[in-house]
């Protein structure tokens, strides 16, 4: 057999698996992730369609039907003002998602920006930003939020502000570390050599590259945030009555623990369920996006 110099051999390239398909396959393979997603889906639907799902007014009760035990009429009974517990829970889901998403949007935007700037510019900028973040982290989150809520007063906007400030350092710290490692890549060096501005590098290169970590971080932080919000409304500095906040419902129901335990058991269970779901989905996302992050996030 002679070698024909004109013959070109084609080697088959390895089959390409789209990153997306790989991600979905790993992500949806886990039963726990599916459970978490289902819980969240049900809760989101509940929150959106609350007026259609709740059979009673969550804010106005029937005083003649106060502290009713669970029955076919009131599946989870009624509170001291005769308000239907289940209806209040359903409306409370709205509060959880509103506070959760608005706070996260705010805290993540500020925290991520600060973290990237601190990581990119090093030096004095880094020093100032990160030491302020360290100082904020020196306060246990619930205590910082409590102090801020005390200063600002209750009400939903102030709770959102207080929790946002308390959540910012968490995002800043992780993004700071991440930026430092992304900066070591050659494509950043290439951008610098081409004369790109710092702002361009930070927001068109570093930011998109930190997206996977951000998605995981946001999901996991949502759980922490919901617990903190519940803690604040349990202490009584959260959403003002008659608003239905799950944490406050636990605190109100506590007085009737011996006679109507369901009054504080049901909302507490709802809080646990939603935090649990966010943690399951967050862990699933992390392992599907980058298993090396286990332990870091």
């Amino acid at each position, binding site marked *: 057999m002679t070698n024909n110099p004109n013959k070109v051999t084609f080697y088959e390239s390895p089959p390409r698996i789209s990153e997306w398909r790989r991600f979905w396959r790993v992500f949806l393979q886990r039963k726990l992730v599916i459970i978490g997603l289902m819980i969240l889906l049900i809760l989101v639907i509940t929150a959106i369609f609350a007026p259609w799902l709740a059979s009673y007014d969550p804010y106005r009760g029937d005083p003649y039907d106060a502290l009713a035990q669970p029955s076919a009429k009131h599946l989870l009974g009624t509170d001291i003002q005769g308000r239907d517990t289940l209806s209040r829970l359903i409306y409370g889901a709205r509060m959880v998602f509103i506070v959760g998403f608005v706070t996260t949007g705010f805290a993540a935007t500020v925290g991520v920006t600060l973290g990237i700037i601190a990581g990119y510019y090093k030096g004095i900028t880094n020093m100032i930003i990160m*030491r*302020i973040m*360290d*100082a*904020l982290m*020196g*306060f*246990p*989150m*619930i*205590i*910082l939020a*409590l*102090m*801020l*809520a*005390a*200063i600002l*007063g209750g009400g939903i906007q102030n709770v959102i502000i207080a929790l946002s400030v308390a959540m910012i350092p968490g995002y800043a710290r992780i993004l700071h570390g991440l930026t430092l490692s992304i900066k070591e890549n050659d494509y950043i060096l290439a951008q610098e050599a081409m004369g790109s501005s710092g702002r361009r590098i930070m927001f068109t290169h570093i930011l998109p590259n930190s997206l996977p970590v951000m998605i995981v971080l946001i999901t996991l932080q949502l*759980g922490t945030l919901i*617990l903190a919000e*519940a*803690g604040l409304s*349990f*202490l*009584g*500095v959260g959403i003002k009555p008659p608003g239905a906040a799950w*944490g406050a419902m*636990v*605190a109100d129901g*506590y007085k009737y*623990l*011996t006679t109507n*335990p369901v009054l*504080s*058991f049901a909302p*507490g*269970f709802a*809080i*646990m*369920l939603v*935090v*649990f779901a966010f*943690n*399951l989905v967050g862990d699933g996302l992390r392992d599907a996006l980058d298993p090396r992050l*286990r*332990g870091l996030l």
Partner: protein
Amino acid sequence: MTAYIIRRLLMAVIIVILVTIMVFSAMRLLPGDPLEIFIGQSAGMGQMTEDVKEQLRHEYGLDKSPVIQYFDWIGGVLRGDLGRSITYRDSVGTLMAERFPITLHIGLVAFVLGNIIGIAMGIIAALRRGSWMDSLVTMLSYIGISIPVFWLGFLLMYVFGFHLKWLPISGYVSPFDDFWLSTKHIIMPVICIMITGLAVIARQTRSSVLEVSQQDYVRTAWSKGLPERAVVAKHILKNSLIPVVTLLGIGIGIIFGGSVLVEQVFAIPGIGRLLVTSVFQQDYVVVQSGVLVISFIVIMSNLIVDISYAWLDPRIRYG
């Protein structure tokens, strides 16, 4: 190592200074007259004449510039003078001295137990990966990081207090007065305060042990025929517990944060409850000092953790 310690100490000093500035300005940002902060509710202020108010402002140093006020306050704090509470009509230092040991007692027990149980659970789960014990630990740690601690308090209270009547429902007894009664009192609060930290530690230990188990030196240890006990104790555990150390500092923060909620649930007269009542009574001098003392402790414990971390793992100091 000395250079590292000095650098970390300097950083901690800067952070503490920033914290004092934050706490100070937070209290000055309150809407309304800062005089209200010092004399409590604005109730009495309506009837006061301008002269009296001026007099009071002078007395509390509120007529000075904010910078001087800050240094006056810091000077006081450094001399151990944390100000006076309006509601309790007592110095904040005395109030804290009464309540601090209570929070510390519960917090320390929770810290020690939570870390020991958490690390043990994490190691067992990782070494028996995929077994029922692993699933159990994973499930329990998910519950631990998801459960609202105040709600867990009510659950325990309902089961062990009301129904089984094994444990006292609320309150606190000093261990020096009656050790057994005191221990019975703190069982439920300790469980509530330690649960979050325990779950976090168990998760971290598990993934850290799993990671170290895949290292080449562990494979070498197995292949040279060492017994399981030696591989686990000498090679896996020693290396995998290093990252767990960083979490110990976070644990202190979780304990103080948790004490705010748990002391409220079980009516324990500790620092957390003092803080919450002071927020509602608008006793801002107490809030200011309480928050300051707690964050000082958190920062210092993080400093100790960082230094011991660098001591355990030389890669950190030179990093």
